[in-house]
C-alpha cells in the first residue's frame, strides 16, 4: 500500500511545484504597433506630429507589470521637415534623443476596460510625472489595444514655446497614445 501511495504522492508534489513555478514566473508584453501623436496649437494654425517607431516592453512579476516605452525624438513626423527640425532643436532632441515612458500597473488591469496609470516621462533632459491618466483598453484576440491622451505641457519639460511670426505656440501639447500590446 505504502509502495503505491508514495510514488503518487511524489508525482502530485512534483506537479504542484511545477505549477507554482509557472505562475510565479515572469511573463511579458511586447509593443506590437504604436501611434504617438503630439498636438501643437498656434494662433495661426494647428499641427500634429506622429511617430510609429516606439518600442516597448512590459515585464510582469508578483502581480505587477513594469512597462517601458521608448521612441526617438527624430521619429516624429509632422509632414513638414522644417517644423520637425525646429521641434528637435527646441526639445534638445540631438542631446537627448530618446523619449521614455515608464509605468507600473497591476496585472489585473489588462482585463479592465479602462485603466488609470501613473506615468513617468523622460524627455528633453527632464522628467515629468502624470498621475492617474485614463486609458481605454480593448481586447483584440490575445492583444490589448490601449489608447488615451497624456496632458503634457511644454513647461513640464522646461521647453521654451517656439514662436512663429513672433507669436508663441500654446503651452499645452497633449500626446495621443495608441498602443497595441501582444503577450510574449
Amino acid at each position: 500500500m505504502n509502495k503505491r501511495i508514495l510514488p503518487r504522492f511524489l508525482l502530485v508534489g512534483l506537479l504542484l511545484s511545477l505549477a507554482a513555478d509557472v505562475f510565479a514566473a515572469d511573463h511579458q508584453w511586447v509593443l506590437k504597433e504604436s501611434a504617438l501623436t503630439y498636438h501643437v496649437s498656434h494662433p495661426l494654425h494647428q499641427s500634429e506630429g506622429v511617430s510609429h517607431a516606439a518600442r516597448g516592453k512590459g515585464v510582469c512579476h508578483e502581480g505587477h507589470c513594469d512597462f517601458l516605452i521608448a521612441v526617438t525624438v527624430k521619429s516624429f513626423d509632422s509632414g513638414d521637415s522644417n517644423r520637425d527640425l525646429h521641434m528637435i532643436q527646441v526639445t534638445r532632441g540631438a542631446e537627448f534623443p530618446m523619449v521614455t515612458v515608464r509605468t507600473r500597473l497591476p496585472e489585473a488591469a489588462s482585463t479592465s476596460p479602462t485603466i488609470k496609470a501613473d506615468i513617468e516621462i523622460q524627455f528633453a533632459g527632464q522628467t515629468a510625472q502624470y498621475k492617474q491618466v485614463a486609458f481605454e483598453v480593448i481586447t483584440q484576440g490575445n492583444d490589448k489595444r490601449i489608447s488615451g491622451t497624456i496632458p503634457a505641457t511644454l513647461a513640464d519639460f522646461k521647453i521654451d514655446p517656439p514662436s512663429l511670426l513672433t507669436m508663441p505656440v500654446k503651452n499645452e501639447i497633449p500626446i495621443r497614445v495608441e498602443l497595441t500590446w501582444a503577450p510574449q
Partner: protein
Amino acid sequence: MNLKAAKVVFGAGLVLILAFNSELLRAQEASATLSGTVTDSSGKVLPNAKASVKNLSTGQSTDAQSDAAGLYTAANLAAGDYEVSVSAEGVGVAVAKVTLAAGGQQSLNLTLTQPQAAPATPPVAPSENLPNAPSAAKTEPSLEDLGFSKSETQSNAAQQALLDKRTRMLKIHQRMGLITTIPLVATVILGPGAGGKSEGTATRDLHVALGSLTGDLYGITAWYAIRAPRIKGTEKRGPIRFHEAMAWIHGPGMILTPILGAMAFEQKNNGEKVHGIASAHGPVAIVTAGAFGAALLSVSVKF
C-alpha cells in the same frame, strides 16, 4: 526733404534690427550653464556618464550625458543651488553641490568612485503612492531590452549646437522677412505715383529710398537663410519646399527690380517716357512682391 525721408526710413529699419538682436542677446544672458569633465579615480575621462542636475529649491531635474571627451553640459538653468549627481555603470557615482549665478557659466569636474557597500538592512518595499518606484524584484525592462542602436540613443552635442545655430539664424531670417514686408509694401504702393506723369520728384525719390531700404533688408533676410546650417540626411517635405521655390522667383526679382528701376529713374529724370526694358520695372516688381508674400504665407498659414 527727400534725403531726410530716406534717412528716417533707413533709421527706423536700423532701430528695428537692433531691437530684435538685443532681445536675442538678453535671452541668451538670462540662463546659467553648468559644465565639467567626468573622470574615474585613475583620471580617465568617462564618455556616456549620466548626469542629473537638480534644483534644490524647485526639485526639478535636468539630465545630461557626457560626450566622448567626458564633457557634460547642462544649459538653460535658473540661478540657484543645485545638486549634481553623475554615474556611470560599473564605474561609480559622484555627487556635489553647486550654486549658479544668473547668466553664469560654472564649471564642475567630477570624479566617480565606487559607492560603499550598503548596510545589511532589509530592502524597503516600494511605497504604494509611488507606482514608478523601482521594483524590488528588478524586473523593470531597460532601454537595452528594446534593441535601440547606440547611434539612436547616444547624445550628440555637436548636432544640437548645429540645430541651435540653425534655429537662431532662421529666427532672424523670419523676423527680418517680416520687417522687410513694411518698406516693400510701401514701395509698391508708391510705385504708380513715382512712375506717373507728374513732374514732381518727391514721390519718386521716396519710392527710390524705400526701394533701397527694401533691397538692403531683403539682402540681410536672405543672408540668414542661405547661411543657416544644413542638417545632413534631412529630406525636405511640406510647405518649406514651396517657400524655397518662391525664393527662386523673388530672389532674382529683387536683383532685377532695382536695376530696371534705376534705368526708369534715369529716363524719367531726363524727361523721357519710360521705355524699352525699363518699362518692365513695374511688372517685375509686382511679381517679386507677390512671390515674397506667397513665400511668407506658405510657412505662416496652413492652407
